């Protein structure tokens, strides 16, 4: 601890420091800069503005992943947009000079909140990267419902939320010869290499991206955001290494956020608790089109979560003068589950049916919208095991019926689900004579334990002690791997590591047969095993070192790729879970505190129980923050974020978090990938917020439909 190097911590000689300057208006044009004072300050090397910024290449295609603003014109599209970069010899001097930059604007009318343009929504152009359509419908759009049908129709909202990883976004860029090297905090080194080479008109091999450790990302480090590009621009301008660390305040407009969502849910059910129709219509905010487009896919979860004869969903966007939203832990599912799982609780209450029972009565045996079987689904087991561990049977269903002294006690639950994703990936394995192996892959460890998991897999495959296997990640010169997002790193990269390790193993077996001596020559490789650093077979054992000596080699290498099986598209692939939470609500002061939590998850095979549990706990706590604290607030007159810091953007602290019990139900997914894993990173976040809101309803009788749940909403 303390030794791991994050992006901002590499030492290069003669390093300069860059600091961003951001706009203070939400819409308009830069008329000009007054740089006289700033330029005169000690240590200032250059001030880059749209007037002298390097003209970038291929801006259009790159805008898919690299967003406005890159100092390419004088337009202002949101408050907090980058308008200049100050480079100086020290951090303090660059910071002081940045504060001395004066910008003259012509402000125009801005849309600062969704409400101001709510009726002017548009259909997303690139919804879910083309993997899904914005709208869906099975059955009748407006089925005729029999008399006696119960209805729930409500609007649920989630606010703007910011990822706030503890490590700020940071880049060290070094332009030397024709080579651009960047150390940058990213969840995707391959994507960063592609974006930077494209923007600067360089060959991909002339851009090296290095990121051995990421201090948390949660989606905010998935894209290549402007600060990394501007750092690269700065090093090309000053011809020395440049370090650019985005301040916590600036991070609120530099690297995306979860957009505000306004979600209308309409449920209809018969008195027996069978859903007759489900509608989920989502409006979310996006930025102005020149900045880019992102649609939070909140209703995707409703398409597959419960069975009903009529299920319809839609997504629309409201364009606002804010920066570009992006993926944030459980993108779509986290915000969408708050709406659908709150509405399900409301319907269960209206039906007077236990919330778990109501869900079981509408259990989806197949994905109703995709009309496909699930690759695997053990949600029933999650409900049963979670409820048993939690003591759900002790819950008196009547709201406001349970107390502990003065405090109201509430018990709530919600379902969780997240898609099982996988993308092509590659890796290499190198085995040396001393029986130690090196695993290499161009993936990154964002805190999920990728270093450890990949080493474990290779050690397991090669019959080596774990201490003999090293992992090297986070360098674009390594075999390429996908972005660390969508809970798919293990599913994508582990099969590649396995394949590479198997490649090494096959070579070892071939060597044993060819060099092991007479007895080995007739042995089939199929009967050989690799165990305790030796090849083991009917002809005896040969140690790896001995084999290397016999074969006169120093190293065995294999590189392999792995990609999703084609038949995987014949299934709907998801992880599932059930969240159970107990809250204490102070009836006079409106204070909500979580007192107990049980989460039961069907996340497929677990590769490392310890790090898996850590991720499950972490996701639940992220969800607690979403439910109770997190909200980015906007000054509606200026479109400027008011609480752009972490003493006013509240996230959960240690004292907010009780003991958390996690249960991993026995389940292996035979379809989605050869490991049987289903992904863990996002799943535990989904359903956490509605479980709390449902528990608050049970405690108080007050239904909160707007997150976060605040004291003033509960001051009866």
């Amino acid at each position: 601890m303390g030794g791991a190097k994050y992006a901002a911590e590499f030492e290069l000689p003669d390093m300069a420091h860059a600091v961003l300057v951001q706009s203070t208006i939400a819409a308009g044009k830069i008329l000009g800069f007054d740089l006289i004072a700033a330029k005169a300050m000690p240590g200032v090397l250059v001030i880059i503005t749209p007037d002298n910024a390097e003209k970038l290449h291929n801006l259009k295609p790159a805008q898919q992943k690299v967003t406005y603003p890159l100092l390419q014109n004088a337009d202002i599209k949101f408050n907090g947009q980058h308008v200049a970069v100050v480079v100086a010899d020290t951090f303090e001097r660059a910071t002081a000079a940045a504060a001395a930059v004066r910008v003259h604007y012509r402000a125009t009318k801005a849309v600062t909140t969704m409400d101001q343009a709510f009726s002017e929504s548009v259909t997303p152009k690139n919804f879910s990267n083309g993997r899904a359509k914005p709208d869906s419908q099975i059955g009748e759009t407006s089925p005729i419902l029999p008399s006696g049908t119960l209805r729930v129709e409500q609007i649920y909202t989630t606010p703007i939320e910011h990822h706030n990883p503890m490590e700020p976004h940071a880049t060290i860029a070094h332009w030397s010869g024709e080579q651009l090297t960047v150390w940058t905090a990213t969840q995707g080194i391959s994507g960063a290499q592609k974006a930077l080479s494209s923007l600067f008109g360089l060959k991909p091999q002339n851009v090296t991206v290095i990121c051995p450790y990421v201090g948390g990302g949660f989606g905010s480090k998935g894209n290549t955001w402007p600060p990394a590009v501007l750092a690269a621009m700065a090093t090309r301008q000053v011809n020395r290494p440049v370090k650019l660390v985005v301040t916590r305040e600036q991070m609120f407009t530099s690297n995306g956020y979860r957009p505000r969502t306004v979600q209308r849910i309409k449920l209809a059910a018969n008195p027996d608790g069978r859903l007759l129709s489900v509608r989920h219509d989502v409006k979310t905010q996006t930025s102005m089109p020149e900045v880019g487009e992102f649609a939070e896919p909140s209703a995707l979860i409703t398409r597959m979560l419960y069975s009903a004869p009529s299920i319809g969903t839609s997504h629309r966007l409201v364009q606002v003068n804010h920066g570009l939203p992006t993926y944030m832990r459980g993108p779509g599912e986290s915000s969408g589950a708050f709406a659908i799982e709150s509405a399900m609780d409301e319907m269960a209450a209206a039906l007077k049916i236990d919330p778990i029972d109501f869900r079981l009565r509408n259990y989806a045996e197949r994905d109703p919208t995709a009309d496909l079987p699930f690759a695997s689904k053990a949600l029933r087991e999650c409900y049963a095991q979670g409820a048993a561990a939690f003591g759900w049977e002790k819950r008196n269903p009547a709201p406001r019926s349970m107390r502990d002294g003065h405090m109201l006690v509430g018990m709530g639950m919600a379902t969780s689900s997240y898609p099982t994703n996988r993308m092509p990936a590659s890796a290499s394995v190198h085995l040396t004579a001393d029986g130690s192996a090196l695993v290499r892959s161009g993936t990154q460890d964002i805190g999920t334990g990728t270093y450890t998991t990949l080493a474990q897999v290779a050690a397991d495959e090669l019959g080596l002690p774990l201490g003999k296997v090293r992992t090297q990640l986070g360098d674009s010169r390594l075999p390429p791997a996908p972005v660390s997002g969508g809970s798919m790193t293990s599913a994508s990269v582990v099969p590649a590591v396995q394949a590479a390790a198997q490649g090494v193993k096959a070579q070892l077996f071939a060597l044993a047969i060819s060099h092991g001596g007479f007895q080995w020559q007739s042995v089939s490789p199929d009967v050989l095993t690799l165990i305790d650093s030796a090849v083991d077979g009917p002809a005896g054992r040969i140690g790896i070192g001995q084999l290397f000596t016999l074969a006169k080699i120093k190293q065995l290498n294999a590189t392999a790729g792995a990609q999703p099986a084609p038949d995987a598209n014949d299934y709907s692939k998801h992880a599932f879970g059930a969240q159970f939470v107990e809250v204490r609500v102070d009836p006079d002061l409106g204070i909500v505190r979580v007192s107990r939590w049980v989460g039961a998850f069907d996340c497929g095979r677990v590769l490392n129980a310890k790090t898996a549990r850590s991720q499950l706990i972490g996701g639940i706590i992220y969800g607690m923050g979403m439910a109770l604290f997190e909200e980015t607030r906007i000054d509606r007159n200026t479109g400027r974020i008011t609480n752009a810091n972490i003493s006013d953007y509240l996230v959960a602290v240690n004292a907010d978090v009780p003991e958390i019990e996690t249960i991993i139900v026995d389940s292996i997914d035979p379809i989605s990938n050869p490991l049987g894993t289903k992904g863990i990173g996002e799943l535990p976040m989904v359903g956490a917020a509605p479980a709390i809101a449902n528990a608050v309803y049970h405690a108080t009788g007050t239904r909160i439909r707007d997150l976060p749940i605040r004291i003033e909403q509960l001051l009866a």
Partner: protein
Amino acid sequence: MQNFSITSPSNLPAAAAAGQNSDTAFIAGGTDMMQLLKNNVITPSKLIDLEKLSLSEIKSENGVLRLGAMATMADVAAHPVVRQNWPAISRALLLSASPQVRNMGTMGGNLLQRTRCLYFRDTGFACNKRAPGSGCPAIPGDSRDLAILGTSPHCIATHPSDLPVALMALDAELELLTPEGTTRRMSLSKFYRLPGTTPHIESNLEAGQIITAVILADQAIGRLSTYLKVRDRTSFAFALVSAAVALDIEDGLIKNARVALGGVGTMPWRVHQVELALCGQKPSDRVFELATLRIGEGAQTTEMNAFKVKLAQRTVVRALQAISA
């Protein structure tokens, strides 16, 4: 942050003399000062470090408690005499900030902590307190955390500290050193100023004056006291509403009561009308509830912070219940 020089005078007169210039600032624990400097809210060219002035002693003598202005929040909170005789002070400090910040922050510095109003701390906004005459965008803006008592059309910034709320309730006095070298006492109730038309002037401390100590003399009212803080998360957050209460109960009747509020006022807010309503009464929930009904008198609320009236009433009731139970 603009650059500055630092001097560390080793005696009080030198410090007071050095502090008279308008572009100088005293630095104590520095926890708030550093944030103000980093945000360019203040831009002094000279800092005068008070650390070498031997002002950190905590002394209890003949029932009088003297807290040196440079005593840290952590040391005062943990002091056995404070915990026993003035529990509201210890509670208020322990509910402030984080353990690390409490190891740095001082008595004097905490009294002078600037508002957490988000508009004040971001130079991207106008603010009458930071830039007099530039306007107050907070009133029509994001006002949830802001004050409902003592406000003016020019400023509704909340005083952020917990400690002075407790001190206000307990009739603390401040010991000040003037640049001329004389020591004077000032009641804390006379120390803070309402924003009015000059929200940038927050106290009656004059240029060069140094707070040297906080004095508490009335032990009878301290022993049965507490501090209750309502905030959005369990720890490490500023108060939405807080209450310091103290009771002197004799023969089952309230002989003397003190109630002060935090999180709702432009300065730590003493509510005398509640105290008067409590005096002579037998402590009960009913009495507490009736007494606190008058808390909202004179409150100027916005749509976003109107809930603080009710929350303040209930916070005071709960605090009174806690010490009278």
